[in-house]
């Protein structure tokens, strides 16, 4: 009996050790992928969606020899042409045996294959965990606070304090698989300044979760709780992160999964309710419903009828005014989505009903007269994707009450093994309304935008590669801060040089030309051209998995109405990262010096952050920035992070504005995170 117990204990330890090692590799991979993605962003965006995708992908590697196109599409750094090439090669070989077989796939370079390695399963038997009850999961606990005290936490002369809560931001998240095919998760969040556990907010400001069941039968998945959906090209339904223009210039197609559970804490645009997906291998029907309270400013008309003037999406409930706007209106959403694999094409279509308890009537402004007003909206859509010879064609047509449909369509094709191209066209009528839509467009509100996009990726000799896009856009109606119909274009080129395995140099140039208001008293409603030129030179050297050095210089020139801004935005940053070979601990340092006097010349730069937490702050002001972070693993499956950051300005006597004003020119923040893996 004792011998059996010992063997059992040894077996469990071996299993846990092996699982732990794999998890470490995947974590390393995930943070590198996310860093490279976030480093490319030019604005502060919520990366929660990608974070969740990465965690999920890391836990469930793709079985390469059985994977369908949709499975490979989850690996977002693979473009559609590469996916097609992988599938074609598998068809030729019948089966990939090792990662080395991927070297024969046209268009896959060495770096991409390296990134793919931890995400693919070649020997499927290794992943067959037949136990019914198994325990696998993650628990994250995070807190952060600013050491200085903003004015919102100080008592005013009348005895009131604007912020009702303390300075701590709290976050917890847990996902667990208690048994095969079943997952559940919950997430809580309290922003700095928000009250908790009192009569204003009973628990924490944001509490959400889900339960997911994936039976292997006609019912494919059932989700109760928070979930996200993405259909077509996002014209009607895109509650995941909207596709963006980036240096991955041929990745413009919406490739998010059609539905999946979510633990996002973004308090706008999510779905809470349930869905059921059922069908066959080639045909799926997904009816869904979402019922939740959303925040908004409530007003009453002369007749006593209540209406809302805006929907609050920032998620802050710190002051009495913000608390009054918390969960004020019931939002009901229901619809159905259908997907059909028709030979080489995938067709999808559906219907969406959106309704608010109180009608939405934004304050009338010339630019917003075509915005959604009232209580209800209904949309329908039809999408397609598939290949015709070596051209991949995709698109979506969407409808609402407006007789003119919205259109987003594009093609991807390879002119040779070294040259991939993407072309896309979009035309969205000015009165097209889709409250949950978020397609790839220039403006935040897509209505009234038409545009043409062309992108290319070119492999060159000597470790060089060039990617570029140009996007021409027109807005047929006024926009926020643009008092006239306008047009413009956006051009990006990235020249990358990889002379050796661990060394990468990058030269990036972006040119943007758009029309904005002339900021002065101008009864003539004058607008003018804003031209932005951004240059980035970056070099990164990582001789192995332990050390990484990144030096980066950015220049941002802006010319407004023909006159160049007094000084360009400038950033010089050095990152040093060290990982202990045994993954016991690692440390990251950033030192950056910025000189950005004009808000328009601000520079967005990725910053090292806690695992699965990513920040891309804007560097604005004259001063320097220090970020230091240490991760330590005291016990197996238990990780601790500490992060310290500091802004030190030379040209400011206060930082921030309103209730967030910090007296002095220094702002420091501390973050702690604990992760327990099961």
């Amino acid at each position, binding site marked *: 009996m004792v011998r059996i117990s010992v063997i059992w204990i040894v077996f469990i330890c071996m299993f846990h050790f092996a699982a732990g090692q794999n998890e470490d590799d995947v974590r390393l991979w995930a943070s590198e992928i996310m860093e490279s993605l976030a480093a490319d962003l030019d604005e502060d965006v919520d990366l929660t969606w990608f974070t969740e995708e990465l965690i999920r992908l890391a836990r469930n590697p793709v079985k390469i020899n059985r994977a369908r196109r949709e499975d490979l599409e989850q690996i977002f750094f693979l473009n559609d042409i590469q996916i097609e090439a992988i599938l074609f090669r598998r068809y030729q070989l019948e089966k990939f045996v090792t990662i080395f077989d991927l070297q024969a796939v046209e268009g896959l370079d060495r770096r991409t294959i390296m990134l793919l390695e931890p995400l693919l399963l070649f020997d499927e038997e290794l992943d067959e965990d037949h136990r019914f009850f198994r325990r696998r999961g993650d628990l994250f606990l995070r807190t952060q606070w600013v050491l200085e005290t903003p004015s919102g936490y100080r008592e005013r002369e009348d005895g009131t304090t604007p912020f009702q809560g303390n300075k701590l931001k709290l976050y917890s998240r847990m996902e667990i698989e208690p048994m095969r095919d079943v997952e559940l998760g919950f997430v809580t969040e309290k922003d700095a300044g928000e009250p908790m556990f009192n009569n204003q907010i009973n628990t924490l400001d944001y509490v959400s979760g889900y339960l997911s069941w994936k039976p292997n039968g006609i019912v494919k998945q059932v989700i109760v709780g928070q979930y996200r959906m993405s259909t077509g090209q996002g014209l009607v339904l895109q509650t995941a992160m909207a596709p963006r223009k980036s240096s991955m210039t041929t990745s413009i197609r919406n490739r998010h999964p059609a539905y999946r559970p979510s633990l996002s804490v973004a308090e706008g645009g999510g779905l809470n309710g349930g869905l059921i997906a059922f069908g066959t291998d080639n045909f799926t029907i997904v009816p869904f419903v979402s019922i939740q309270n959303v925040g908004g400013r409530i007003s009453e008309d002369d007749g006593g009828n209540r209406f809302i003037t805006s929907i609050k999406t920032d998620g802050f409930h710190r002051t009495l005014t913000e608390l009054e706007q918390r969960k004020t209106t019931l939002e009901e959403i229901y619809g159905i989505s259908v997907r059909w694999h028709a030979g080489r094409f995938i067709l999808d279509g559906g219907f969406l009903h959106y309704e608010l308890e109180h009608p939405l009537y934004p304050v009338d402004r010339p630019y917003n007269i075509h915005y959604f007003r009232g209580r209800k909206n209904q949309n329908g859509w039809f999408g397609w994707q598939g290949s015709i010879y070596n051209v991949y064609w995709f698109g979506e047509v969407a409808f609402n009450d407006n007789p003119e449909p919205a259109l987003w369509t594009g093609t991807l094709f390879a002119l040779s093994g070294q040259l991939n191209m993407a072309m896309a066209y979009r035309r969205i009528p000015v009165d097209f309304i889709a409250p949950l839509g978020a397609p790839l467009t220039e403006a935040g509100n897509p209505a009234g935008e038409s545009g043409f996009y062309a992108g290319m990726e070119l492999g060159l000799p000597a470790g060089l590669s060039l990617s570029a896009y140009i996007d021409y856009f027109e807005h047929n109606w006024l926009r926020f801060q643009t008092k006239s119909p306008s047009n413009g274009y956006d051009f990006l080129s990235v020249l990358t040089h990889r002379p050796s395995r661990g060394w990468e140099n990058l030269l990036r140039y972006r040119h943007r030309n758009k029309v904005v208001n002339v900021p002065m008293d101008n009864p003539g409603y004058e607008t003018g051209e804003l031209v932005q030129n951004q240059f980035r030179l970056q070099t990164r050297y990582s001789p192995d998995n*332990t050390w990484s*050095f990144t030096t980066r210089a950015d220049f941002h020139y802006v010319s407004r109405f023909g006159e160049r801004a007094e000084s360009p935005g400038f950033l*010089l940053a050095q990152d040093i990262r060290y990982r202990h070979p045994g993954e016991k601990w690692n440390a990251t340092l950033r*030192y950056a*010096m910025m000189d950005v006097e004009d808000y328009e010349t601000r520079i967005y730069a990725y910053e090292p952050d806690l695992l699965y937490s990513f920040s891309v702050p804007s560097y604005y002001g004259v001063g*320097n920035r220090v970020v230091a972070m240490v991760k330590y693993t005291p016990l197996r499956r238990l990780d601790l992070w500490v992060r310290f950051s500091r802004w030190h300005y030379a040209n400011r006597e206060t930082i921030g504005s309103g209730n967030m004003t910090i007296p002095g020119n220094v702002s420091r923040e501390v973050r702690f995170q604990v992760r327990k893996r099961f």
Partner: protein
Amino acid sequence: MLALKIKCQFRHENGNSFSLMLHSSRFIISFLFCFFFFSFLSLSVVFCQVQVFNSPVDGIMVRSGAMSRDAWAFFTNPAGTALNPVLAAGAGYESTFHLSDLSSRAAFAVFPNRYGVVSGGFSQYGFSSFNLQQYSVAFAREMAPWLRLGIKGTRMVRYQQSYGSHGIFLMDAGLQIMPSSQFAIGFFTANPSRQKWDLDNHSEYHVSYSAASILYEPSSGLFLELGLIKEMEEDAVVSFSVEAPVHQQVNLRGGVSSAPLRMAFGAGLEWEMIRFDAGINHHPTLGFSSAFGIVYVIKR
């Protein structure tokens, strides 16, 4: 061959670099964190030039100094002194715009040992009514064939007729990496913690600046360098410089930099145990500045 070996070619050896690095890892991390920790704590004038003394091979040649790789690196990126394998001492003189009141002078010594390279020095700038004295100690180490790190602590004393004498302590740090046999990248920062001078009735931030460079050696002894230097409240300066051997013992140097456009010319001569360096640059409004220096090898 009696030519001095102060200036070294960078090396890139694949052999034992990683094992050396791993053995040094704890030290490196402690070193880096200590630097930032102390730089936050250290105490703190804005003066009209970024460095008190511009060496004849770097500052006067309008180079950023991030890829300095000889004993003169003591005045710019301390990591560069890690390449110096000999006990040496040197002195230099700089004449800014050829005005004696704006001249500066410096002396330093470099002592390599089993732990790394320790160097110390003194520099002085100014005239009777306003002057700066700087006492510095630096430590640098070649952590791996592809990595050099350096740190420098400086006690600076300022005398100003109206305010008397005041002192601050400054920390600088830098690194140089060699991703290939022909390329090297350098970065250093001076006074990252933004120390202040607490004068009698007000305080002033001491100058903070950072610099980065990429150095390319297309053939042996020929160096092309693209550099960038940014002082906190001034425009970024982009520089390009060339250094080429015209004789076994003579190097010629040239450089150009932006904001404002400055051009520089200089030369270095190695003879027996001595090396002479001299340089001159031209400012479009204020005229010429020059510097010369001498380095003597005490013991090989």
